[in-house]
């Protein structure tokens, strides 16, 4: 099996997983029962009236990623650059999640006018955890040491490999892939930082249930980040082995590597689904409530981006949906990260 065949299998597997995801997202609005639409406590008869078209539009928006995917995939198959299917899968993962996030927000906002009058007012009493949340509190030291050690071993190996015959090896070929992988590792660390900073005010009533759900969700996303970092580290470690091995041995090694990656993908998908089901159980225990908006976010954040130095949040819930706060430190870090990624890619592609 070569890398292009692997990309096709990976893409087919991705489609199979997506069907399950679509069914799950399709059921999500009614998960709490017919008196709810996502987290909006709707009036009786909602689903026979205006709710029907809101629900239908939500379902239609679920197909936006397919509308992007199908033509791009056809173009890739026709052009024969099958390796790009892996890039397409990565891009679609992001697109599906962002599309879902915005689609749910839009559907909830459309359903708000049909909310039960008693559910419209925000709760008066909210509870805040006084436990400091730091990245190190959510870090598994053993995993971090393993990741650091494997990367160091790989880099030492690559340096020795390059220095053994510097005139015969291309510096960019030897260090380019590990450099990109390392940079993505930093990216996942940044995502972890954002997840840790994710705000968690909870209503005083049912505070324990809400906190448990929020913390479990936070840990779930942090584990996903760590999982991606482990895969990237494995990729870094695999690179010097791939460079050092003889061409005959390489083919066999690549087959093992791809088979292992596919197995990991299947196992992790099953594991993620099990954890997701547990999160749904926890979410259903905590009754949704509206929390007070002290900063009048709908007034200060009218666009998809805003500049609010006084607001400490990265994302504000504005009048027309989510709004990225450009005055937040994490926004600066994210922008610097993207600029660094572009520079690294440019250096690896065009540098001497």
């Amino acid at each position, binding site marked *: 099996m070569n890398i292009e065949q692997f990309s096709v299998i990976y893409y087919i597997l991705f489609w199979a997983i997506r069907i399950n995801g679509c069914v799950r997202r399709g059921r999500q609005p009614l998960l709490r029962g017919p008196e709810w639409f996502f987290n909006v406590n709707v009036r009786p008869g909602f689903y026979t009236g205006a709710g029907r078209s809101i629900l239908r539009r939500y379902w239609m928006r679920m197909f936006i990623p397919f509308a992007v995917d199908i033509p791009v995939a056809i173009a890739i198959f026709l052009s024969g650059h099958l390796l790009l299917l892996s890039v397409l899968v990565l891009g679609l993962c992001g697109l599906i999640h962002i599309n879902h996030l915005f689609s749910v927000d839009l559907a909830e906002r459309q359903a708000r006018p049909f909310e039960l009058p008693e559910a419209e007012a925000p709760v008066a009493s909210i509870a805040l955890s006084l436990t400091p949340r730091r990245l190190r509190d959510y870090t598994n030291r053993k995993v971090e040491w393993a990741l650091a050690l494997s990367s160091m071993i790989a880099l030492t190996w690559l340096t020795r490999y390059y220095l053994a015959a510097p005139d015969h090896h291309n510096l960019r070929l030897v260090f380019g892939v590990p450099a990109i992988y390392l940079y993505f590792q930093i990216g996942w660390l940044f995502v972890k930082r954002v997840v840790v900073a994710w*705000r*968690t005010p909870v209503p005083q009533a049912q505070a324990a249930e809400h906190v448990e759900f929020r913390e479990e969700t936070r840990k779930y996303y942090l584990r996903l980040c760590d999982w991606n970092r482990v895969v990237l580290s494995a990729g870094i470690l695999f690179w010097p082995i791939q460079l050092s091995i003889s061409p005959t041995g390489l083919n066999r090694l690549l087959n093992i590597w791809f088979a292992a990656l596919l197995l990991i993908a299947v196992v992790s998908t099953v594991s993620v689904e099990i954890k997701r089901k547990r999160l749904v159980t926890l979410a259903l225990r905590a009754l949704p409530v509206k929390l007070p908006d002290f900063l009048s976010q709908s007034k200060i954040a009218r666009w998809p981006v805003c500049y609010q130095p006084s607001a400490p*949040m990265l994302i504000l819930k504005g009048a027309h949906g989510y709004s990225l706060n450009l005055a937040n430190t994490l926004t600066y870090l994210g922008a610097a990260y993207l600029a660094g990624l572009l520079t690294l890619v440019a250096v690896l592609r065009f540098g001497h």
Partner: protein
Amino acid sequence: MIFLTINTTDPRPIYQQVADGVKELIARGELEEGASLPPVRQLAADLGVNLNTIATAYRELQKDGLIVIKHGSGSMVASRKITDRSQDELLRPLRKALTELVLAGMSSRKILNLVARELSMVAKESK
């Protein structure tokens, strides 16, 4: 997990509710000496308020000698021994509260019972 409660129907400003809430938790012994408090940014973001609101609350707690703010390492609950406030200063809020109760028409016996009950609750939880 230790919680701080904020009530929107409470006439006190939010910074005062935060400061009073932390004071109460320290008095009850739920926040022990040396315990770390969340950074101003975390608490402000969680509550969804201006950074200055929480910074003001922390400053008030620092002024009262209840917390120590160290740049770089965050804020922590101070040792009770370093509270160098005079007795008169400490008695002032009690006097104010007693005046309120007297003006509300409560008898001395009832006020004494109330004070004893509140004190026993605080003392019991701080043990």
